[in-house]
C-alpha cells in the first residue's frame, strides 16, 4: 500500500434539528497533503443508523484487511462514532498504525462534537434573532468544522499523540463468551464481498446462567453486535464517493470492535479471528470481553492472546470446532453448537437456546 492511500480520513457530521431545512450534513476528507476538502458534492450522507440501538452503542471498530489471497495486510481502517446532543459524527480513516489509542481518539472526536454543538446552539439563537442568515450559519459551521478536522488530522498523523497505549487503572475485564460463526462469502450486485451467517455456536461460562446476568447477554443482540461491527454498505457508498478504488481489492473485516453501554458506561470489546476454509467459506470466532460481568470463575482478558493462538492452531490443523474448544481453556464452559441463525429469536436468553437445541437433538 502506498502512503497516499494510507492517509484517507473521512469525517461525516450530521446535526439533527427540529427545524425543516436541517439536518445539516457534511463530509470532509482530510487526506492527501493535509488539505481539508468538502466532499458533499450534492450527495448527503445520513449516519443516523449508527445511533439507533439503545442496547449497546458502537464506539469504534478497527478493521484488518486481507487481499484476494487471504493474506493479512499491514493496513488498518478505523471507524469511530461519536455524538453529543444533536450532533452525530462518523470518522473513517485508513492508516498503517496498529497501535492507535481508542480512548484518546474518541476523546478528540467527542471534543469536535461538543464544540460543534455549542457553536450550533449559538448560531441557532442568532438566526432566531435574525442577526445572521441561514447561509451564514452553514458557512460558519463549515468553516469551523474544517478547522477542527484539520487539527484532528494533524494530531492523528503528524503529532501522533493519539498512538500508544492508554494508561488506565481500571481492572482488566473478563472474557464473557465466545461465538463461532460459519459464514459464506458472496459477491453482491455492486461487486462487493458480503458475508452471510449460516450457523452459530455459543460457548459461555456457567455464571451466565445465573439470574443476575439474565438480561445482560441476549444471543440475538450479540449477533446484531457482530453484524454491526462489519462495515455497512452505506459507508461503502461514501467511500466510493471519495474514489477509493483500491477498496474493491480488499476484504475488510473487523479486528476489534468497541461498544459502550449507554446507561452504565461499561465497555464491551469484541475481538475477531478468521479462519478461511477454501474459496467461499469462513469461520469467524468472536471473543467477547465485557466489563459488566465479574466472577472469579471467569477468564481474565489478559489470557486472551494465548487462548486465541491455541484455538487458531487447532482450527487450522484439525478444522473441527468441538475438538478445538475441548482442548482450550474453555473446556469446562457450556457449549451450544451449530444453531441455525434463523432459529434465534429476539428475546430468548441463552438458556432457552439450550433447551431448543436439546429438543432438536431428541
Amino acid at each position: 500500500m502506498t502512503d497516499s492511500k494510507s492517509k484517507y480520513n473521512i469525517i461525516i457530521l450530521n446535526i439533527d434539528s427540529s427545524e425543516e431545512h436541517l439536518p445539516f450534513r457534511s463530509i470532509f476528507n482530510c487526506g492527501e497533503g493535509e488539505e481539508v476538502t468538502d466532499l458533499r458534492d450534492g450527495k448527503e450522507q445520513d449516519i443516523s443508523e449508527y445511533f439507533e440501538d439503545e442496547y449497546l452503542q458502537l464506539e469504534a471498530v478497527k478493521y484488518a484487511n486481507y487481499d484476494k489471497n487471504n493474506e493479512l495486510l499491514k493496513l488498518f481502517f478505523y471507524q469511530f462514532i461519536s455524538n453529543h446532543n444533536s450532533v452525530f459524527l462518523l470518522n473513517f480513516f485508513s492508516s498503517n498504525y496498529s497501535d492507535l489509542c481508542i480512548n484518546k481518539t474518541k476523546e478528540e472526536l467527542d471534543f469536535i462534537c461538543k464544540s460543534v454543538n455549542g457553536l450550533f446552539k449559538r448560531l441557532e439563537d442568532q438566526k432566531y434573532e435574525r442577526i445572521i442568515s441561514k447561509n451564514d450559519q452553514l458557512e460558519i459551521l463549515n468553516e469551523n468544522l474544517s478547522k477542527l478536522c484539520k487539527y484532528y488530522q494533524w494530531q492523528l498523523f503528524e503529532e501522533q499523540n493519539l498512538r500508544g497505549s492508554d494508561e488506565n487503572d481500571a481492572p482488566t475485564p473478563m472474557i464473557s463468551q465466545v461465538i463461532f460463526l460459519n459464514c459464506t462469502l458472496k459477491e453482491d450486485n455492486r461487486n462487493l464481498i458480503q458475508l452471510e451467517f449460516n450457523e452459530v455456536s455459543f460457548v459461555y461460562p456457567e455464571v451466565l446462567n445465573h439470574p443476575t446476568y439474565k438480561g445482560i447477554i441476549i444471543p440475538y443482540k450479540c449477533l446484531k453486535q457482530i453484524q454491526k461491527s462489519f462495515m455497512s454498505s452505506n459507508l461503502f457508498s461514501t467511500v466510493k464517493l471519495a474514489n477509493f478504488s483500491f477498496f474493491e481489492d480488499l476484504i475488510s473485516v473487523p479486528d476489534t470492535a468497541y461498544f459502550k453501554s449507554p446507561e452504565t458506561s461499561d465497555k464491551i470489546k469484541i475481538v475477531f479471528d478468521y479462519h478461511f476454509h477454501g474459496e467461499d467459506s469462513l469461520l469467524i470466532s468472536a471473543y467477547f470481553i465485557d466489563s459488566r460481568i465479574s466472577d472469579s470463575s471467569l477468564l481474565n482478558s489478559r489470557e486472551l492472546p494465548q487462548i486465541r493462538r491455541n484455538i487458531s492452531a487447532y482450527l487450522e490443523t484439525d478444522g473441527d470446532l468441538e475438538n478445538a474448544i475441548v482442548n482450550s481453556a474453555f473446556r469446562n464452559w457450556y457449549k451450544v453448537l451449530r444453531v441455525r441463525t434463523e432459529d434465534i429469536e429476539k428475546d430468548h436468553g441463552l438458556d432457552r437456546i439450550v433447551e431448543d437445541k436439546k429438543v432438536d437433538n431428541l
Partner: protein
Amino acid sequence: MNHVINQISDIVYSPEGIFDKVNQFKTLFNYFNANYRDFIMNQPTFLSEIRKKLKMEIGFLSPQKKEICLAVYGILLTEDLIDKYSEFHYAEDISTLLDATNKKNICTEDEFVGLLTSFTHCIKMSTKALDVILENLCLIKIKEKDRDLIEMLLIKNNFLPALSEACLEFEVGEFQVDLRFITAIFAYLIEKKVLTDSSDKKLKSISYHYNVIKSKYPLSEGEDLFYDLIRTQLVVPYYTEIEKFILPKIESLSLKQSLSKIDNQEEIGEITSDVEKSEIHPIITFVSGIVEEVLYQNQTVNSAKKQHIERNIAYLLKKGSTENETFTSSTLSSGVLIEIIDIWFIIFSIYPQLVLHLVNLHDYADFTENPENYLQTNRRKIMQQLNIKFRKYISVDEMSIDNIAKAFAKILIEILSNPTIKTIDFQK
C-alpha cells in the same frame, strides 16, 4: 515528530481534584473572612477614604456588604493581589459579578464573602494561566507555522483548560457563573498584559468587556460553548495583538537556540575545564566495564572483543543521536564527534592512566605528578592527539555513525593494548 510541542502543551495546568479545590476555597474563605474583619477594625481612615471615592458606585449594597466590599478592596490593594486595579473598575466589576451569578438580590453575607473570595482567586489564577499560555504560544510558534493549527492548539490545549479551571473556582463556592463573565476576565487580562504594555490605551474594566461580549454573544451556559466562545471572543479579536506582543520573545528564543548551537560547535576549540553532563552516558558505563576488565582482571583484547565493542558503541551512539545520516563535512563540527570527544575526557578523568598512550614523552613527568591538573591544562593537546587518531581511522568521505563507532573501538583497543598503561595505577 513534534515532541517538543507535545511536552509544552502537556505542562499547562495539572487539574486538581475537586476536593483539593474545595479545601483550597475553604481556607481562602476563612482567610478573607478573618482578614476583612481585621481590616475594618484596624484601618478606619483608609477605609473612609475609599468609601468617599466609591460612595455612589456601590450604593446598591446593604451597609454590611458595603463594609465587606470595601475591606476586600483594601486587602487587594495592600496585598497587591491585582495590580493597577482602580476603585471604579472594582465597583463596576462587583456589581456585574452579582448580575452574572444571579445573586444580586438573594445573597447572604457569607455567600457574598465567598463570592468575593472566588472572584479574587479566579483573577489571580487566570493571570498566572495567561503567562503560561503566552509562553506556550512562543514555543508553539517556533515549531508551527500554520495559523489554523496554532489557533486550535491555543484554544484546545491552553485556553480551554484555563477557562474551565477558572469556572471551577466559582463552582466550588457553589456559584453558577455566566461563562461570558469568565471570558471577560480573560479579555481584561489580555488587554492589560498585551495592549497597555505597548500603547497608552486606557484600561477597561471587566464589566465593560462583559457587556461587550454579552451584546455579541447570546448564550451563557454549557461546557460545549467554550470552543466557540474562546474562538470568537478571545482568539479572533486578540490574535494579532498577542502575536505582536510575543514577537520579540520569539526572536530572542530562536536566537538563543541558534546561539546555543554555535556555542556547542565552538566548544571543541575552547579549553573547557569540565564537561557538563547531567547524567552518565551509557557509552561511559560500557567503556569503563571494558577498561576495568583489561586493567584489573588482566583480560586481553582479542578480535571477538573488538567486534563486541564496535557493535555496542555503534548501537549506543545511534540510540543517543537523532541524526544518523552520513556526515559530509570533514571538520569536527558534527554533534556526534563533539559528544565522543567529551566522552573520552570523562573516561580519562576516571582512568587517567589511559592518557599515557597520548602523552608526549617530554610531559611524562608532569603527567605522573598530577594527572588531573595535566588533563585540565593540556586539554587542547590531548584533543589534538585524539583528532589525529580519528582522522587516521576514518577517511573524510565516510563520516557515518558506524564508522565513527569503528574508529572509537579501534582507538580504545589501541590504547588498551599499550602495555605502559598497566604500569601506573592512580587509584591506589
